[in-house]
């Protein structure tokens, strides 16, 4: 179907990307960045129009990793979609699991045992830490730091992945949570190992901070670049650290109180400028808060089952209805929208991907800035293509 014949109305001016005019000097250069480009996190593509080195137009192009996730979800049973959610945001499979499990639990009114809730929190926060660390590493990589920060981030990530693997059996694609709990219980040895890793995390964050935080080059390149205003951020559906970096206090862990997050004491760091540096710092500070949550959760972890005995896994046929469940994934609001018609498969299975929607304002942030900044701004959004294109 062609969209021809659609009349385009004049839109409210303030939420559109500004039109940047060239000063007529020099010719405009159209450059494609991606799909194979060293800094587009895989196969993202931006078509950029440059005036000198200034970006005056930018069009993101999606779909190079469109893997039909939603259609597969509708063709398969509820359980079979669980491992697919691992592959959405492949850095944070556990939070994806949780969001999906939460949506299904909402759909059928399933309770989750307490121990499972605690384990979910522990795993989600570990996921958050490794995601944020890697994101910062990648951001610095894009800034040209020849991999060293990324290596340090991955050094820590490997430790966390070891934990994931020894609990769930897989490094990245954990497929761990189930509707009504978790698949397997954590052994005392695992908890001990986790405590040890968590105890080592503050030192890592300290090292990272010493390494980077006051680096003049980093500050010069990040501060005041890619500024996002809070009202636009809210209007454009931005969520996660990117939203909080603009100063909007909105953390779904605090707002929805899903899981058992209201039992933990933690703070939500907020930025004031909404630039790359704020996004970077908010992530840095969130890692520290996550460590706090982890310490509390590991202390209070109760004994008990990890799976609701009444929970159904196979031949799971929820009654007709729909549900939208969302959590605060490391990248933002990750939601699953399910419509059940009573069959074994969801009638409609929809993922609300934070990375994808956070890219809405990419153009607004990039216009008028240097082409080198585009790469950084893009990196600071923190996307994973698996989730963007699904």
């Amino acid at each position, binding site marked *: 179907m062609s969209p021809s014949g659609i009349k385009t109305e004049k839109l409210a001016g303030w939420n559109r990307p500004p039109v940047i005019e060239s000063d007529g000097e020099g010719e405009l*250069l159209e*450059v494609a*960045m991606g799909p194979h*480009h*060293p*800094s587009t996190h895989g196969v993202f593509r931006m078509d950029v129009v440059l005036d000198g*080195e200034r970006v005056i137009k930018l069009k993101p192009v999606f779909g190079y990793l469109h893997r039909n996730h939603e259609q597969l979800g509708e063709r398969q049973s509820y359980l079979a979609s669980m491992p697919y959610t691992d592959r959405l945001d492949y850095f944070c499979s556990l939070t994806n699991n949780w969001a999906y499990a939460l949506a299904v639990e909402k759909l059928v009114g399933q309770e989750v045992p307490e121990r499972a809730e605690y384990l979910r929190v522990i795993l989600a926060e570990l996921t958050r830490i490794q995601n944020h660390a890697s994101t910062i590493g990648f951001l*610095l*990589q*894009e*800034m*040209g*730091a*020849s*991999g*060293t920060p990324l*290596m*340090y981030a991955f*050094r820590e990530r490997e430790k966390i992945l070891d934990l994931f693997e020894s609990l769930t059996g897989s490094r990245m694609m954990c497929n761990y949570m189930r509707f009504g709990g978790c698949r397997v219980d954590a052994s005392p040895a695992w908890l001990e190992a986790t405590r040890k890793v968590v105890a080592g995390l503050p030192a890592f964050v300290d090292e990272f901070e010493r390494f980077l*935080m*006051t*680096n*003049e*080059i*980093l*500050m*010069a*390149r*990040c*501060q*005041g670049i890619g500024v996002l205003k809070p009202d636009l951020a809210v209007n454009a559906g931005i969520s996660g650290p990117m939203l909080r970096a603009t100063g909007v*206090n909105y*953390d779904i862990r*605090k707002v929805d109180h899903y899981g058992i997050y209201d039992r933990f004491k933690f*703070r*939500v*760091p*907020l*930025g*004031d*400028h909404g630039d790359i*540096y*704020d996004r970077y*710092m*908010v992530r840095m*500070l969130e890692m520290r808060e996550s460590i706090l949550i982890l310490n509390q959760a590991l202390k209070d972890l109760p004994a008990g089952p990890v799976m609701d005995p009444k929970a159904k896994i196979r031949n799971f046929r929820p009654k007709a209805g729909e549900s939208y469940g969302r959590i605060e994934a490391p990248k933002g609001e990750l939601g699953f929208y399910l419509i059940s018609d009573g069959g074994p498969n969801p009638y409609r299975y929809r993922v609300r991907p934070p990375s994808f929607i956070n890219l809405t304002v990419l153009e607004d942030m990039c216009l008028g800035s*240097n*082409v*080198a*900044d*585009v*790469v950084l701004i893009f990196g600071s959004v923190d996307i994973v293509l698996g989730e963007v294109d699904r």
Partner: protein
Amino acid sequence: MTERLDQIFVVLKHWLLGYLPESWQTPVGVVISVVCIIGLYPALFAITTVLERKGVGRMQNRLGPNRVGPYGILQPMADGIKSLTKEDIVPTSADAVVHFLAPVILVVTVFMGFAVLPMGRNMVLVDMDAGLLFYFAMGASTELSVFMAGWSSRNKYSLLGAMRAVAQMISYEVALLLSSVVIVMMTGSLSLVKIVEAQNHYSYGFPHWFIFTPWGLAAFIMYAIAGTAETNRSPFDLPEGESELVAGYHTEYSGFKFALFFLGEYVAMFSISGLGSTLFLGGWMAPFSGLQFIPSWIWFFGKLFVSMCVFIWLRGTLPRLRQDQLMNFAWKFVLPMCLLNLFVAGLWRFMGEGWLRWLVCSAILILAYVSLGREGMRRQKFGPRSYRYAE
């Protein structure tokens, strides 16, 4: 004995030449020296690449290449063979002749610089009256080859990368020149041999290197910055800034042509480091009078090695600047500092001996450094921040 060791290469050469008829001796001597230079630096390049990969690896908590040959030392050889046998692609729309010439010219101009570098006592190919000028004249020619590479590829990334590279190189070339003028002012010669010899005294065992004066130190810092930028090394490696420009001006180069660019970059590093140590670090002089028994060429290459290590260290640590910041840094920080340093050097001479000139010169330079730095940070509007939390 130490004398012998010091002059071992010179003696060796003369011993070899002794077997030749008189009229052949000079030309063959030149050829031998030249072949030594051109054999030596690529070998050093090979070693340095391994060192770099291993060194950066160590900084990143990993081992680096260690499988090809013992401890991975044959890695560059394998890379070389691979590059040599790799298909050579010349894009259809590229300008084939210029595309071919660019790496060759780069290598040639980079090597020419070594003609005037003294690598040890009596170890210099030509000691020219205008040696330093010759060095810079050759250095200036490399820009053209970079431009040729980028332009002839007819690729957007290449051309942007080349333009960036040229803009960057010309900006820092000025700083490079001006920071070394100070040394010339003090030694009264453009001959690098004379410059080294001018630093050849020791008091209380410590050498009189130019870096140990306020203006010398300032000039050295500026030289180091400009030299890093001139060789496109991190944090000034924008022309190859792969995060936005894929591989910069050599995006379209494959096979050994690419290897030549790679080689050119490293050899230029040696050359800049060699000149730096000649100008500021006493060239082949020993750092303490007690260590003079160690041959001069060991000192020269030792200094070269140390400066390579610093290059590698910087590369392993720093993110890269943006083009406008880089240009601003060159023109609004490095260049003013260099110009100021000229006056400081003049002042140094006219103030006569005594501690006062140390004080005044250092004060002027530190003041300028701090205020220019502040000004730069203010202009760029960056600085540490604090953050608030919501409960």
